[in-house]
């Protein structure tokens, strides 16, 4: 396990370094269109070829990594925090709070949020900068993505409420927020970590789908989601295998994240 953890650490650091060094590694930038060579295969000049508009794919992956790797975990953090708040707190408090939270969560899971997103786009000015649109997109994703795990958390917290060590802690005088933070919340970690880890790729992919509504990362800014959506038109992977690189990169980074996160849970 130590080997795996070291390897994971190296990978994550390497990816971060590459994306931070994008300005040096891909000086032409992600937007420049090499119009004489659209859809070109990998070459000396373009390590992963060019996309259908002649933009260097390697540069787009590097710059896209910055955005997605920074914002998707941030959004995942928001949704995890909300899940802990609604699900965990409600389960801990029990009674009417639990019922209300469960009802609210179930309703939240069922509503067509597509229309809220369309309305948000309508409320935003048309000329918002790509960076702002990205921030807003991931913020919304974080605010909407907590419901499923909140439901599981409410069950976890509910069972914890009546468990021996919580009763013991209460008996010894610990109450309210401190009890929640010190004894209950740490025991909710399995679900919270799972939620965090799953949310990262889900949000990266959702951001691309939001492009259909005018939210999401605005052109010419690249994002992993839009790079992954390129795969949709690919009927034969054998023809252009380099197009799978963003997918492999994401899988590798995600696996590395999980290996780093699971320090406590995995038995020796």
């Amino acid at each position, binding site marked *: 396990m130590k080997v795996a953890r070291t390897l994971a650490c190296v990978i994550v650091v390497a990816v971060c370094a590459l994306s931070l060094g994008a300005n040096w590694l891909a000086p032409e930038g992600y937007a420049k269109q090499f119009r004489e060579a*659209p859809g070109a295969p990998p070459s000396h000049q373009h390590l992963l070829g060019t996309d259908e508009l002649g933009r260097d794919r390697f540069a787009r992956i590097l710059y896209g990594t910055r955005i997605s790797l920074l914002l998707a975990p941030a959004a995942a953090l928001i949704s995890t925090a909300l899940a802990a708040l609604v699900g965990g707190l409600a389960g801990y408090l029990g009674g009417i709070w639990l019922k209300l939270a469960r009802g609210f969560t179930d309703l939240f899971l069922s509503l067509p949020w597509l229309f809220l997103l369309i309305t948000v786009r309508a409320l935003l000015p048309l000329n918002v900068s790509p960076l702002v649109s990205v921030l807003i997109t991931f913020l919304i994703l974080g605010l909407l993505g907590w419901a499923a795990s909140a439901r599981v958390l409410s069950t976890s917290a509910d069972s914890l409420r009546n468990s021996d060590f919580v009763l013991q802690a209460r008996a010894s005088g610990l109450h309210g927020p401190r009890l929640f933070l010190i004894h209950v919340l740490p025991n909710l970690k399995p679900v919270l970590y799972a939620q965090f880890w799953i949310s990262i790729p889900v949000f990266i992919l959702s951001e691309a789908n939001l492009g259909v509504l005018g939210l999401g990362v605005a052109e010419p800014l690249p994002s992993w989601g839009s790079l992954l959506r390129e795969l949709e038109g690919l009927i034969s992977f054998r023809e252009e295998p380099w197009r799978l690189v963003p997918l492999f990169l994401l899988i590798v980074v995600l696996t590395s994240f999980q290996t780093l996160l699971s320090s406590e849970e995995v038995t020796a």
Partner: protein
Amino acid sequence: MTGRRSFLRILFCFALLSALALFSTAAIAQNGGQLRFCLRAEPKTFDPLLVDDDASLAVRYLTGGVLIRVNRHTQDLEAELAESWKISKDGKQIAFKLRHGLRFSDGSPFAADDVAFTMQRLMDPALHSSTGDAFRSGTGTVTTKVLSADQVVVTFPAAVAGLDRLFDQVAIMSAHSPKKEGAVLGPFMVGEYKAGSSLLLERNPYYWKKDAQGRRLPYLDSIHLDIQANRDVEMLRFKRGELDLINVLDTDYFDRLASSSPQLVHDAGPSLDSDFMWFNQVANAPIPEYRRAWFRSTNFRRAISLAINRDDLSRIVFNGHAQPAVGPVSPANKFWFNSKLKADAHNPQAALALLKADGFHMQNGTLLDKNSNPVEFSIVTNAGSKPRERMSVLIQEDLGKIGIKVNLVPLDFPSLLERISQKFNYEAAMLGFRNVDLDPNGQMNIWLSSAEDHAWNPKQKAPETAWEAEIDKLMREQASSIDPKKRKQSFDRVQEIVYEQAPFIYLVNQNALSAVSGSVSGANPGILSPQTFWNAERLTLNGTARASR
């Protein structure tokens, strides 16, 4: 012994010959089989008078019988249900002589009162039929007079330009049949319909047309239409042999298919469709005043048009299967296209010169207007059209080279529509125009300044500019005349004004691309819709394909 042997020999030869004869007649008869292709959306209605969307139009083309048909290949008029027709000198009246003894698909007889019934229903203003509205040249009622079982006269309150061609859109309905819209005169009729999934069209047993050998048309037994919006899946199924044709093929798929099976794809040359963008010129639109001033300036619009590299758009987005567009009519429309006009070549220097004339100047790579506002605007377009999204990114870079910052906003279609036709909270928009009609009279509601579809500034109470007033005058002239030469003169001038003033900045005319599988015989893909199955009644499926199903 010899007698029996020779007898057997003769018997054998006879058997062989008769088997060959049977086989060859079976091959010649070649009847039957099921043609399969996809509709990209759900047909919204089966009522032929209310049809407006592509899928319903396809169904109407295959099931509806019309009086006059525009041959999609030669663009000439052909007599269908009407044996002959005559338009009066003033263009207000058309008299039809119908064919005898025809029947609807349920066996009920076809006669002149069915035509009268259809026209009356079509022209009822409460119906709000777009086909009917196309005939509405002036206020007043349309009258029909049945002279005999096979003669009917339709009279309009004012002259209708291109009157006979318009009847290609009018599918005759039965006045008496209990099946109402289910009784049709076309080669096929609606069989089984599974909403959201598929539609089966069966051969109309009472279809009147016969081929040169006297055999009843259509050759096909049925047509199976799948409702599939996703083009990747459509392409996959075509490659696997589950579909027989793709009516409108995307450029990406065309090239991919052409590299493996070039005999299956067809590029019929420039179509009638155009892609274009325009700027919001509405007087009280909720956009900053200084931006509105830019959009209302002809120099600004012409400069944008010059700064766009249309050759790159054709080459990169369409891989050469498109050409730069110059106006509302594509060169494929040979009669109506003003051949003196040429699409703007990419010329950033000329663009900057025009902008300078309006007081714009460059500063540190950014273009500023005369009040030092940086030139920045947004282009809305509908998400889901990959070619348009790609064109907008190329345009973003083209305009970036002359210091203009463009923000691209793909939107879902209803939101886009609301912005461009109701709320006017947009700055620039990019859309495409699917032109089904050769005659520009169908575009009246785009060019009249008081009309709904005058996209950059609709529903004006009075024309706000001199050139829009001139366009109004010219369009009305061509609508009220029936001399094609005079109409062409007027419309040529309209095209010139549109080029000079650039209210629409035309980008490209896409080529008509389609794919037809090897099992289909008789297909002749063209540019007029429906491109591949316009002669569905004469299409056949060859034997090998039939055996494998």
